[in-house]
């Protein structure tokens, strides 16, 4: 069965330290000024019952990826055998159709002109390691694994807690789930 890699991020445990961001930049040598992941702080409700939530965000490696559908050259593609969305810089024209199509604003333009984005640290995953952001999280709020495997930690966490995805109404079926 094909892998459906995903992340489960515990928003209750996340302290918004930004270690995941630094780890990603270091591991993937992301050029200065550009970021594959980021942390948001969302405050909702009315005083005095305000709710604060930290979220580490990145490409959602959607099951129905609009970026891949929008790409006119096939440079944006889904890795065979999994749901990891990647970009082939040698095919990319830098037309930015995928940037327009992504509801999460997770793509950016590399200095060379092609599109950059989170790869779930595919080079690490292929060696059986965790993505860099997950491996360094000091709060252990991020878990990576195969959502298709009912015995995986990510599947177990999703069964045990209430969770949400970002902009589910966009119909992209994201693979990053947030425990709330």
């Amino acid at each position, binding site marked *: 069965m094909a892998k459906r890699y995903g992340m489960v991020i515990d928003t209750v445990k996340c302290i*918004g330290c*930004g270690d995941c*961001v630094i780890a990603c930049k270091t591991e993937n040598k992301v050029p200065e*000024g*550009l*970021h594959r992941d*980021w*942390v*948001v*702080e*969302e*405050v*909702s*409700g*009315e005083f005095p019952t*305000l709710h604060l939530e*930290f979220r580490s965000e990145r490409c959602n490696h959607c099951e129905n990826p*609009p970026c891949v*559908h*929008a*790409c*006119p*050259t*096939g*440079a944006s593609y889904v890795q065979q055998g999994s749901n990891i969305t990647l970009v082939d*810089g*040698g*095919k*990319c*024209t*830098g*037309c*930015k*159709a995928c*940037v*327009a*199509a*992504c*509801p*999460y*604003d997770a*793509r*950016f*333009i590399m200095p*060379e*002109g*092609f599109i950059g984005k989170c790869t779930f640290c595919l080079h690490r995953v292929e060696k059986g390691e965790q993505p860099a952001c997950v491996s360094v999280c000091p709060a252990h709020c991020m878990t990576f694994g195969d959502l298709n495997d009912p015995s995986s930690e990510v599947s177990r966490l999703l069964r045990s807690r209430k969770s949400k995805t*970002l*902009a589910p*109404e*966009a*119909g992209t079926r994201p693979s990053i789930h947030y425990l709330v």
Partner: protein
Amino acid sequence: MNEIAIITNKANHLIDPVLHFWGWEIPVYLFLGGLTAGILVLSATLILLQRHREYRWAGSGLLLFAPVLLSLGMGALFLDLEHKLYVWRFYTTFRLSSPMSWGAWILLLVYPLNLLLIAGTLRESFPAVHGWIQARLRGRSADLTARLFAWSERNLRRVAGFTLPVGLGLGLYTGILLSAYVARPFWNVSVLAPLFLVSGLSTALALVMLVTADSREHRFFSRVDLFVVLVEILLLFLLGFSMFTSTATQQAAVHLITGGELTHLFWIFFFALGLALPLFIELMELRGAHVNRRVAPGLILFGGLMFRVVVVKAGQLTSWISN
């Protein structure tokens, strides 16, 4: 309240703090692409109705402008590409799900059809230009050109029959290119495609009025444009209506032009100056008033460009997530 703030350093070029990845190049490309589509639809229709001889500029003259206008538009599109040396990659594949891929191939069809229509109408409409070309060619190239002219004249209606759907496709594509993006609530409205087509047709009619010296041709196409502008206003109403009655995200998106930061640009520079005023002038002309004949078409062309500027900008300001 609901406030979302990025607390780590995310400042990706052209993405943050708000998307602005498509600058002036894309509205210019969409405007010139729409104008070319309008020219092709207009000329092909007149040829099919066998009325192109009556209206020299609408039937054949504008066809001489079309490749230049489209090339300028494609030049703007090329300038927008971030990985320019890989532009040829558009033509190594066809992606059914990508409107941009459809557009790339449609653009490639436009040039030969446009050339054949020019070849088929030039001798009759612009004999001096035809003679000038013939006089400068020698030997094999003269023979090939003469055969091209003869073939195009014989098959003119057939070529126009192929050109009409391609022109309609090009006009619709300029709208579908944007409306296909679910991620951008301001663009994700299906009526955008016919609206861009009708707007493109209106700008082509305006160009006829601008270049023709024949008052009969000017008067006739001024009346046609009057009708087309009314259709455009109806489609604009439908665009607003469909967004107002849609999800909260789309209601927030339409607020950009109904009180938000693009309100002045939309209502003053596009709607008032580029649509309502020329409509009023055309109505006055219909009643016999004398207004400089270049004012209304000039305003329509200006409005066509402003419309695309507003739409391209508005789409980038709207999102499902309010980071």
